[in-house]
């Protein structure tokens, strides 16, 4: 029962709050959704220990969904270690965020709607991670996309929120095309979409070739790349990342739950889930590594100069997702999932802490107009410290264990792309620490830069918001140390069992435990120097950063404008699309289809009508003449017997 409960309690909550929210009232909707989530979390955490630690992997078949020819898809809940880790993490974090939302959204006008969306999202995410086949995974995939759209655009009376929601949805469509094609490819290749059958059949297709892009490529490589394109969209990897910073238009709990802890990690999950496929596709894996490593570095550079507190954390998320991908790319899937797991705690903590700051600062999000508030909100300040320490990989916080593992695995891959990933990751670690402390110092220290109304109003958040933060902070401190050994320790295979397959020879996981000492400590050194630099610049010489920015105006603007990706896409895709769309609309639809179609026929009918009417002169001899013509035609026709 707990298998179904973990997934369907959130749906129940969403339905009740969504359809009966009006009669339940705000408080009722909050109670129902939080209650359902708590039940789901109880089931989810129990499953986490039962499946992952006790080894009771199982699959619960709910119903047959599609049965058409050789195409069969079930509604089934698959619980292996990978799913169980995700289910436990998602239900747990989601419950905390539900509770936090009770406080954070207390002044909103549509609380039941918000809570229903959150629960709906959680349900879709759980369907995604427990899917037994690619189609159900795709269902959950699109379900989280829908919930993400609804929640980004939750404040639909804001123009920018609507734009951001559409942007997220549309950019994800690009990835989804790849994903859908990947599913088709897998089905064509293996004649199945159920994971077990697919993985079993894949072994025989290692050398199957298909012609694509004007040449012969290995079918598994093609499928893997297509699936990875889907993952890139969902996980905001370089190229398809542009939606994630804009998605911060949503309420902060949404940013924490969907755009940091859970949904955006679905891409990493997908790669891990499809590890048997990716293990057969070294080129695809290299691509994953390069994209992941580049994203990690690229997003970190942007994070250093942003001024919106949530956008900084969003780019940080983007960067950390890059870490996870390159870990997966070097076949260190456990490291990727481990980082995903710890990241969920400290990133949710950071986001919710940022939300607490925003709450205190009367909805101010620009860190240039903050500062000097650490004494007024000490609890939030302390929690943000913990979150940042974990993010920066300072020893013995959660991020230290997972990030080090990821970097060691990249080193341990002993490949060129592995080296590339390692060095990108090292630089990114430095930048991560830097922007984290830049955020911390600008937000909490220095002279208050907000006006005195706001400053008078600064207050600590209510317990209902602080308590979830405390729980997350505990996770951010201990999740790494506690779960290091089972997740990525020497005997990681006993933990993951069949959920993750690593091909012989891809022994980055093993090598990660035997790296030189400097590799182990370099990330920490980089992190600490990043922190030191941030202190030097923003505490020691507060005027210096502005002077540096002015001195290196070009670089600064380049970073501030996010490498001009939005502008590039605007020029490359959006404007041409608009031009083509306008041409097709005005020229194609308006002039040609309407012109010759509905409007044209109508106009032709009217023109014909006026011509026919003109024949009706009212003169008898004209009429008689017409009759004579008629008789001639009839006789001719009759005599010849044909037209």
């Amino acid at each position, binding site marked *: 029962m707990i298998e179904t409960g973990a997934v369907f309690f959130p749906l129940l909550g969403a339905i009740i709050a969504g359809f009966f929210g009006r009669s339940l009232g705000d408080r009722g909707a909050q109670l129902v959704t939080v209650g359902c989530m708590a039940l789901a979390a109880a089931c989810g955490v129990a499953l986490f220990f039962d499946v992952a630690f006790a080894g009771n992997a199982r699959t619960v078949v709910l119903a047959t969904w599609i049965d058409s020819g050789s195409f069969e898809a079930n509604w089934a809940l698959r619980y292996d270690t990978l799913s169980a880790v995700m289910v436990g993490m998602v239900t747990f974090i989601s419950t905390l965020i539900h509770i936090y939302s009770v406080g954070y959204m207390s002044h909103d006008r549509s609380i039941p709607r918000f809570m229903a969306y959150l629960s709906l999202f959680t349900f879709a995410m759980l369907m995604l991670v427990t899917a037994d086949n690619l189609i159900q995974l795709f269902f959950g995939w699109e379900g989280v996309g829908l919930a993400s759209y609804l929640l980004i655009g939750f404040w639909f009376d804001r123009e920018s929120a609507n734009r951001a929601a559409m942007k997220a949805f549309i950019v994800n469509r690009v990835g989804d095309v790849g994903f859908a094609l990947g599913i088709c490819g897998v089905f064509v290749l293996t004649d199945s979409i159920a994971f077990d059958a697919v993985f079993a059949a894949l072994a025989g297709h290692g050398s199957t070739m298909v012609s694509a892009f004007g040449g012969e490529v290995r079918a598994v490589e093609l499928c893997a790349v297509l699936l990875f394109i889907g993952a890139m969209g969902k996980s905001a990897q370089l190229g398809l990342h542009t939606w994630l910073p804009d998605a911060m238009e949503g309420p902060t709990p949404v940013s924490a739950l969907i755009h940091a802890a859970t949904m955006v990690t679905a891409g990493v999950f997908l790669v891990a889930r499809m590890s048997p496929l990716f293990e057969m596709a070294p080129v695809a894996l290299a691509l994953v590594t390069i994209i992941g490593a580049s994203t990690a570095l690229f997003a970190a550079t942007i994070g250093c100069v942003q001024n919106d507190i949530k956008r900084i954390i969003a780019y940080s998320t983007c960067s950390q997702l890059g870490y996870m991908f390159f870990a997966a790319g070097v076949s260190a899937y456990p490291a990727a999932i481990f980082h995903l797991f710890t990241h969920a705690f400290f990133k949710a903590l950071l986001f919710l802490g940022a939300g607490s700051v925003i709450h205190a600062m009367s909805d101010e999000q620009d860190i240039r107009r903050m500062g000097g508030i650490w004494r007024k909100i000490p609890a939030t300040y302390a929690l943000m410290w913990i979150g940042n320490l974990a993010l920066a990989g300072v020893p013995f916080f959660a991020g230290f264990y997972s990030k080090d593992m990821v970097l060691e695995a990249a080193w341990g891959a002993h490949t060129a792309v592995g080296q590339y990933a390692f060095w990108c990751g090292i630089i990114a670690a430095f930048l991560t620490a830097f922007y984290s402390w830049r955020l911390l110092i600008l937000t909490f220290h220095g002279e208050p830069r907000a006006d005195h109304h706001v400053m008078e109003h600064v207050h600590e958040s209510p317990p209902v918001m602080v308590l979830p933060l405390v729980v997350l902070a505990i996770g951010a401190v201990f999740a790494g140390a506690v779960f290091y050994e089972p997740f990525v320790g020497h005997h990681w295979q006993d933990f993951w069992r069949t959920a993750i397959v690593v091909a012989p020879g891809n022994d980055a996981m093993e090598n990660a435990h035997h790296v030189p000492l400097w590799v182990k400590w370099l990330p920490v050194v980089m992190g600490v120097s990043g922190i030191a630099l941030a202190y030097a610049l923003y505490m020691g010489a507060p005027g210096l950063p502005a002077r540096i920015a002015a001195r290196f105006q070009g670089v600064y603007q380049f970073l501030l404008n996010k490498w001009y990706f939005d502008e590039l896409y605007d020029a490359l895709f959006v404007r041409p699309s608009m031009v083509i769309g306008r041409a097709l609309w005005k020229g194609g639809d308006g002039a040609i289809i309407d012109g010759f179609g509905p409007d044209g026929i109508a106009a032709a009918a009217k023109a014909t*009508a006026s011509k026919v*009417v003109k024949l009706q002169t009212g003169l008898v001899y004209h*009429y*008689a003449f*017409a009759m004579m013509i008629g008789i001639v035609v009839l006789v001719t*026709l*009759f005599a010849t017997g044909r037209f």
Partner: protein
Amino acid sequence: MTATMNWTIAAPELVLACAAMAILMVGVFARRDAWTMVSMLSFGALLGTAVLVIAGGQGPAVAFSGLFVVDGFAVFAKVLILLAAGLGLLLALDWHQREGIARFEYPIIVLLATLGMMMMVSANDLMSLYVGLELSSLALYIAASFARDDLRSTEAGLKYFMLGALASGMLLYGASLTYGYAGTTRFAGIAEALGTAPASAGLVVGLCFIAAGLAFKVSAVPFHMWTPDVYEGAPTPVTAFFSIAPKVAAIALFLRVMTGPFAPVIAQWQQIIILISAASMLVGAFAAIGQTNVKRLMAYSSIGHVGYALIGLAAGDEAGIRAVLVYMAIYVVMNAGAFGCIVAMRKGGKATERIEDLAGLGSTAPMMALAMAVFMFSMAGIPPLAGFFGKLYVFVAAVQAGLWPLAILGVLASVVSAFYYLRIVKVMYFDAGDVALDARPASISFVVAATGAATVLFAALPAPLLGAAAMAARSLVGG
């Protein structure tokens, strides 16, 4: 061929003729209010005739040495003609009084026209055909110009007369050619002459001229041009009568002539019918679009409807004939209803006939607007109203006979025609009107309500009409 007089089978016609003359005398000698009395007596005469027609049995039998035939087809057509005449007369009751043309001759003219039409559908010889046709035509010429002080009415009558005379001339010319080459005017003899040898040129030309004369009567393109002018000029109840009773008679005569004497050359005349059917549908569909006068619009509408009916004739088989008969029966009912609404269009005591005068009817006279909407939807062929089934049967017959293009053309033409039918509905419900229509008399309300109910309920109980039409069609071509 029997040489007997056998006049008893012509009893309905004889009774109607005598009644018409007797009622004329009553009218002449009545002191005052002859209009109402004569009208009532005329209804009685029509009703009595109908009873005799139905009671007279379905034959088949011939009289007057083969000039006159009674069969199931004739009975069906006669009942329909009598119904149409009765409806036409009902619509005139109030209108003629208000317009000051309530002279007692009108009902008698209607009776005489009806008599002529009944003879047309019973004609079994070119001579009796012509006599019947001319009797009805002469009566109709007078009816068209009945408002003799009205310029438009007299113009209508004159035009109708002149063009009708031309058409009669054509018909007669065709009849004489046919007689010259076939050696007989009897339908059976013509069929025999056509069947035995390859058709001679003279017979062919004769057939064409006869067809042209008949096409004039049904106002099929290109012999339709009198229709809009006459429909517009004639007093509205007369137009209503024109649009239903003579149409039924002429179509029935058309069916009898084409499937009787000219049956052996069906392959040739099919082409003609296809041509005039298609042309009628198209002209009826397109020319009506630009009209602002509702009577002119109905004129084009009736041209279009004749085109649809002729699809069934073009099919030429029993199913086609049946479809035509069903179509005409439905046409009579819905057209009478639509004209009932048009007759009721009066503002401040004056008749109006512009489409825009219907504006706002949806709120000022909701029941009438509803009825008019029903008739318009039905004529446009929207299910489940009667007009849809009328079109459905002719199209099915055409498709079964392999006349795909004609059926497709018919569907397209009905799409176009839907535009102007629905425009009336739009004007009634969506345009703001200025002045409400005058209160309508009970007779018109009755006609509108009865025909409206029949139009709506046909789908629920189609069997009687379909059965009767099937029997009639079988008697004509089924042997």
